[in-house]
C-alpha cells in the first residue's frame, strides 16, 4: 500500500488551538500501529473555526476532519482514518465544505493545498510560472497587466497598484527597492499572515516580479514581531528560494538580480504606515514622514520604492498568468478583483473568505460567518481595523466596495471584519479607539499625540455625565481637528470609530443616572 498523506496545518491559528499536539499524536500513533503515513504540515485553508483541520488523502481526495483534538487521534485511527473512515469529527471531502467552495480564490488558491515549505510542491502548482512569463514577455507587459487588472492596494489605502509601479519604473535611480508591508497590525486582520504561512513562495515570486517590472534588485519584507511562526516559515522559504536559484544573481539565466531581506518590526502599530515603515527599515524610530516626496520617488534610503501590502503583491502572479482583464472582470465599480475578507471577533465561523468585491457585509457575516459566536444579535461591526467606523446592524446590506463604504463614512481597509454582539459597550470601544491612538501615536504631529489623550479624558467625562452637552461638542470639535490636521491615518482616522459610536449608539454614552431616568 502506498504512503498515506495526512495534512495538519502549521499556521498560527491552527497551532494556537492545538495543531502541533494533533500532529505529534498522529506521528506517535502511526508509528505505534506501523501505519505508513506521510505527515505534511500545510498552511490553513482559512476555515479557522474548524481548526485544527486534519485532512487525509484517500486516492487523491482529501477527506477533512474538523476541530480535532490530540485526544481524538487514537479513535480516528481506530475508525480507519487512513481510508477516510467515519468519525464524529469527519466533515467529508475538503472540496465540498461550503465555506471554502463558495469563494473566489485568486490570491489564496494555494493556501492549504500545498506544503508551504516545499519548493517542489510550489512548482508543481504553477509556482514561478508567472516570473518565468515575466522574463519572457518583458517588464512592460507586467506593468500593463497590473494596470489593466485594476488592482488597488490591499493594505487599506486602496491606491492603484499599476500607477504606483509605473511611477517607480519611470523614476530615475541607480537603486530601487520593493518594500513589502507585512506589518499587519489591524485588529481583526490576518490575511497577510495566512498567505505568508500558507504560500510563502507565492509572495517571494510576487516580489521578484515587482522588482523585475520596476527595475529593483532588492526587496525587503517588514514583518511584525507578533508573528514568530510566520517569521520562521518565511525565513526558511527565502533560504530555499535562494538555494534553488529563484533569488540572487542572474535568476534562471534571465540576467535579473533580486534578493529579499526579512526584517522584523518591534511592536509599533504606526510602522504599518508606509513612511514610518521605511524609517523603521532604516533602523530608526518609526516616525511618519511628510508626503511629498512620495515613497515611489524617494522611499527607502531616499531611493524610488514600491511599498505594497502582502496581499496586493501576492495577487500579481495570477494577474501575470491569466491576464489583467480576468482580474478586473471580477468585482464591482472601481473595486476590481477579490479581497480576502477576514471574519473575526464574536462570530461563529471565523476565518478567511476570499471573495469578489460586491458581496455584502451581511452575506459574509451570516452566510459564511453563521452570525455571532454567542448567538446574540449583532450590534456593531468594525470593518478595516481600529481606524474603521463601527457599522450598525441596519447597514449590513452595504456591498463590499471601496466607494460604497466611503459613502457611509466607513472604510474597507485591509478587509478585517470584527463582529460585536449586543453586549458590547460602544462608549468603552470609542474610548479604546482614543486610548489606542494615545499608546501608538508616533508623536510627530500634535492632533494625534495630544488629541488622543484629551479624547480619552473627554469621553470619560461624557460617560460620567459631566457637562455632557459641552463635552460632546468638545469631542466632535476634537475629532474635526484630528481628522483635518493629523499627518497620517493614525490620528486622522481615529475619529471614525469614535464618531460612528456617538452617532449610532448614543445610548451607550448615557451616564448611569440618565439610564435610571
Amino acid at each position, binding site marked *: 500500500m502506498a504512503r498515506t498523506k495526512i495534512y495538519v496545518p502549521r499556521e*498560527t*491559528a491552527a*497551532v*494556537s*488551538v492545538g495543531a502541533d499536539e494533533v500532529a505529534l499524536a498522529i506521528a506517535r500513533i502511526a508509528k505505534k500501529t506501523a501505519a505508513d503515513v506521510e505527515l505534511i504540515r500545510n498552511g490553513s485553508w482559512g476555515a*479557522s*473555526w474548524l*481548526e485544527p483541520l486534519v485532512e487525509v488523502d484517500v486516492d487523491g481526495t482529501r477527506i477533512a476532519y474538523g476541530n480535532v483534538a490530540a485526544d481524538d487521534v487514537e479513535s480516528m485511527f481506530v475508525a480507519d482514518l487512513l481510508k477516510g473512515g467515519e468519525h464524529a469529527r469527519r466533515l467529508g471531502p475538503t472540496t465540498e465544505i461550503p465555506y471554502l467552495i463558495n469563494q473566489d480564490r485568486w490570491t489564496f488558491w494555494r493556501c492549504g493545498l500545498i506544503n508551504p515549505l516545499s519548493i517542489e510542491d510550489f512548482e508543481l502548482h504553477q509556482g514561478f510560472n508567472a516570473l518565468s512569463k515575466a522574463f519572457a514577455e518583458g517588464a512592460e507587459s507586467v506593468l500593463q497587466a497590473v494596470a489593466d487588472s485594476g488592482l488597488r492596494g490591499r493594505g487599506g489605502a486602496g491606491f492603484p497598484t499599476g500607477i504606483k509601479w509605473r511611477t517607480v519604473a519611470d523614476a530615475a535611480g541607480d537603486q530601487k527597492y520593493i518594500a513589502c508591508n507585512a506589518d*499587519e*497590525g*489591524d*485588529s*481583526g*486582520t*490576518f490575511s497577510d*499572515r495566512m498567505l505568508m504561512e500558507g504560500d510563502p513562495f507565492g509572495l517571494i515570486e510576487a516580489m521578484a516580479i515587482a522588482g523585475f517590472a520596476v527595475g529593483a534588485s532588492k526587496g525587503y519584507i517588514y514583518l*511584525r*514581531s*507578533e508573528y*514568530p*511562526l510566520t517569521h520562521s516559515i518565511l525565513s526558511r522559504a527565502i533560504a530555499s528560494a535562494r538555494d534553488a536559484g529563484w533569488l540572487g544573481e542572474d535568476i534562471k539565466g534571465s540576467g535579473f538580480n533580486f534578493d529579499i531581506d526579512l*526584517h*522584523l*518590526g*518591534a*511592536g*509599533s*502599530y504606526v510602522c504599518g504606515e508606509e513612511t514610518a515603515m521605511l524609517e*523603521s*527599515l*532604516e*533602523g*530608526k*524610530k*518609526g*516616525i511618519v514622514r511628510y508626503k511629498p516626496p512620495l515613497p515611489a520617488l524617494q522611499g527607502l*534610503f531616499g531611493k524610488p520604492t514600491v511599498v505594497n501590502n502582502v496581499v496586493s503583491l501576492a495577487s500579481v502572479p495570477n494577474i501575470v498568468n491569466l491576464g489583467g482583464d480576468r482580474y478586473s472582470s471580477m468585482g464591482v465599480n472601481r473595486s476590481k478583483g477579490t479581497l480576502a475578507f*477576514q*471574519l*473575526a*471577533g*464574536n*462570530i461563529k465561523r*471565523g*476565518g*478567511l473568505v476570499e471573495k469578489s468585491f460586491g458581496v455584502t457585509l451581511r452575506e459574509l457575516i451570516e452566510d459564511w460567518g453563521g452570525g455571532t459566536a454567542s448567538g446574540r444579535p449583532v450590534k456593531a461591526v*468594525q470593518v478595516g481595523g*481600529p481606524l474603521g467606523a463601527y457599522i450598525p446592524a441596519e447597514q449590513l446590506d452595504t456591498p463590499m466596495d471601496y466607494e460604497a463604504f466611503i459613502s457611509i463614512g466607513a472604510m474597507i481597509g485591509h478587509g*478585517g471584519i*470584527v*463582529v*460585536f*454582539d449586543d453586549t*458590547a459597550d460602544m462608549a468603552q*470601544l470609542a474610548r*479604546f479607539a482614543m486610548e*489606542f491612538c494615545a*499608546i*501608538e501615536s*508616533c508623536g510627530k504631529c500634535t492632533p494625534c499625540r495630544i488629541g488622543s489623550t484629551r479624547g480619552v479624558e473627554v469621553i470619560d467625562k461624557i460617560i460620567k455625565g459631566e457637562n455632557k452637552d459641552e463635552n460632546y461638542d468638545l469631542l466632535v470639535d476634537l475629532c474635526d481637528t484630528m481628522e483635518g490636521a493629523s499627518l497620517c491615518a493614525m490620528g486622522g482616522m481615529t475619529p471614525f470609530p469614535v464618531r460612528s459610536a456617538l452617532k449610532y449608539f448614543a445610548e451607550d454614552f448615557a451616564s448611569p443616572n440618565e439610564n435610571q431616568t
Partner: protein
Amino acid sequence: MATIDEKTTSEIVAEFDSRPELLVQILQTIVMRFGWIPEKTIRQLAGELNLSRADVHGVVEYYHDFRTSEPGRHIVKICQAEACQAMGSRELTRHAETTLAMSLHDTANDITLEPVYCLGNCACSPAVMVNGKTYGRVDAPRFNALLDSLRGDD
C-alpha cells in the same frame, strides 16, 4: 533569562556587519535572546555602530518590544485589541490580573504580564501569547491551565 554581556553584544553587532541602519534588527535580536536591553548595552551599541547615545536611546524608547528592565522568566501577553474584546479579553485580563495578583506591565513571581495589540489570531479570540507562542480561544480555565504548565517548568 540571562543579561547580555559585552562580548555577546559585539558578536550580535558583528552578525549584522556593524551596520547602523540595522539597529532595529540588532535590538530585536537582543530582546528575543535576552528579553531586555540594559543601559550599558545602549552605550556600547552607540559606540560600536557610530551612533549617538541619544539615537540608540530614542529607538529603544520608541518600540514597545524593547524593554529596558529585566522581565520575568515567563512573558504572558494578553491581546487587548477589538476582536479579542468582542470575545471577552477585558474580562480575561481582569481574571489574569486577579489570579496573578498583578497588573498589566508588572513583573512578579517570574512572570511579566503585558498587553499586546493584536496577535493576528482574531478568528480564534481571545488570544494570548506565552513565551512567544500564540494560544487561541483562551477562556479563564484555559488561561489557568497555561499558567499551570509554566509552573510545571520550574
